[in-house]
């Protein structure tokens, strides 16, 4: 009796093992698989209207950095390029370019930045959107960060030329918006760039 008491749980365990692994010949155990049913993914389209979400928040950083790409100017502003007339042609000739994997504004690009600064000084109502871009030789999210730093570096350089950073917004496209979609150094050097978009109040606004 005592022996049986000991063995009984062992036999249960063994029986369970046999049942799950199906060692015995005969009809195999059947697994019922549920359909998608409640686990299914809802109809994905059309997307609901875009929510407003968080308001664009003024940054908390202070002052102007001591060099390009120092990251010391908070991206603070309270205007939205989407609500303005975007003039891409006005400063198209002033696109600045960067060395590989670098967000340093080169001396050769300073004269273009001076032109951009003049455009902003000549029209106090104008604002600026800087679009940072990368070549394809980097991973996607890394390039999104690098493109942002390139845009921020130009913003800091413009601040040194007397432009209020509040008038400047940045956007990074990473490697998602190449100027030239070829896969060679000529294309890459064109793609490592900041484009400047002049933003003007909408007429009648």
């Amino acid at each position, binding site marked *: 009796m005592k*022996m049986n008491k000991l*063995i009984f749980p*062992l*036999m249960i365990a063994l029986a369970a*093992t046999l049942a799950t*692994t*199906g*060692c015995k010949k005969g009809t*195999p*155990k*059947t697994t*019922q*698989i*549920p359909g*998608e049913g409640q*686990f299914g*993914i*809802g*109809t*994905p*389209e*059309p*997307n*609901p209207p*875009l*929510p407003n*979400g*968080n308001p*664009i*928040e003024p*940054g908390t*950083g202070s002052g102007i*950095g001591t060099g390009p*790409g*120092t*990251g010391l100017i908070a*991206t603070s502003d309270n205007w939205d390029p*989407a609500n303005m007339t975007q003039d891409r042609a006005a400063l198209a000739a002033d696109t600045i370019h960067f060395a590989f*994997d670098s967000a340093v504004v080169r001396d050769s690009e300073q004269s273009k930045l001076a032109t951009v600064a003049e455009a902003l000084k000549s029209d106090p109502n104008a604002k600026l959107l800087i679009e940072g871009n990368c070549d*394809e*030789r*980097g*991973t*996607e*999210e*890394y390039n*999104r*960060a*690098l493109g*942002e*730093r390139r845009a*921020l570096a130009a913003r800091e350089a413009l601040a040194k030329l007397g432009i209020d950073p509040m008038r400047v*917004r*940045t*956007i*990074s496209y990473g490697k*998602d*918006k190449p100027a030239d*979609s070829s*896969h060679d150094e000529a294309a890459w050097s064109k793609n490592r760039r900041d484009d400047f978009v002049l933003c003007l109040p909408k007429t009648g606004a």
Partner: protein
Amino acid sequence: MKKTILNFLIITLAAIALNFSNAQTEIQISREGMKPIPVALDGFTGEAAEVLKFDLYVQGFSFVTPDAAQYLIHGSDSGNVIGTVTDKLARKVILSRSYNGASLRQQAHAFADDIVQAATGRPGIAQLRGTTARIAYKSQPSGIGPGEIYVSDFDGYNAQRVTSDGAIVAKPAWVPGRLALFYTSYARGNPDIFYQSLTSAQRRVIAGYSGLNTSAAVSPDGLKLAMILSKSGSPNVWICNADGTNLKRVTTGIEDSSPAWSPNGDWICFATVHNARRRLAKVPAGGGEVQYLNTAGTPSPTEPDWSPDGKWIAFTCQFGGEFDICVLPADGSAAPTVLVSGQNPSWAPNSRTLVFNHGSNGHQTLSVLDVFTKQYKDCRRATGNNSQPAWAR
């Protein structure tokens, strides 16, 4: 009775031996890798055979003749999937099962998981919480346009579009245990982080600050979000509650990207620039001192993903314009191992399989990789340009 006790002892010993071999396996991940488990597959046709071959190959099995096989997998798929697995060495049937319901495809995935469990003692990857395991990714199905976020089975089948904004999207991240995603979208004219439920299509902006809002990563408990914001003047790691509240900056580097949580939620691994060199680093999730990881021999490391068991960090390194998938022991005990060419690794729940993308620029293909054997297979069903896959856990 005596025989029963003996059988029980044998089973126990076998279980111990199996655990021991698992331990061996884990040690070897960073060395020469491991030999595939040779199996012979017979009796299956069409879709069922295709599913079994895909699922087993990307979990470290190889297909050989019955003579050379360690396991014989036999069965049929007329109507339903039914199959047996015989251990040739032990001369024993270790699995005999039939499947019912759902699709033949799902039945085959279920059988594949049972084969993996029976042969290795580890859970398979093909199913998660009762359905076929899923991935989310960024896709341009025709290879052009800004792309949209898609969700599909882990092998690229049953794809469904999640977004339809016609705007650039990036970096989908699953909420653990739920059919819900965070992702980046330029739909409002700025890269913002959205939350979207996949069951109700409800969505919200979680981070829409001026500048960059991207690379959302959900904490293992689903309560917090790590992400990259540039609102302080440089791209850095910030954390907040899953609803966007309680925002806090946790890094101050010149340029940080791609945060990933440790499975215990204590650390955030991220890519950064230190002394003019790109590095991987980790920082306590509550903020604190940044520690740099040993990524010797793997230049420009980015896109870390911490394995669910906490032992490994998979990432992308870059030699010139070429990308490679690498794996690093999270405790820093050894240098990283370069596995295969590719980008954007994301761990499956088994901490051994990765989904990633590879190919030429503009023609990226999703692929599933067994880290131990370096065997991988493309998710060819997902056509066009596909990247940034995230495995639902």
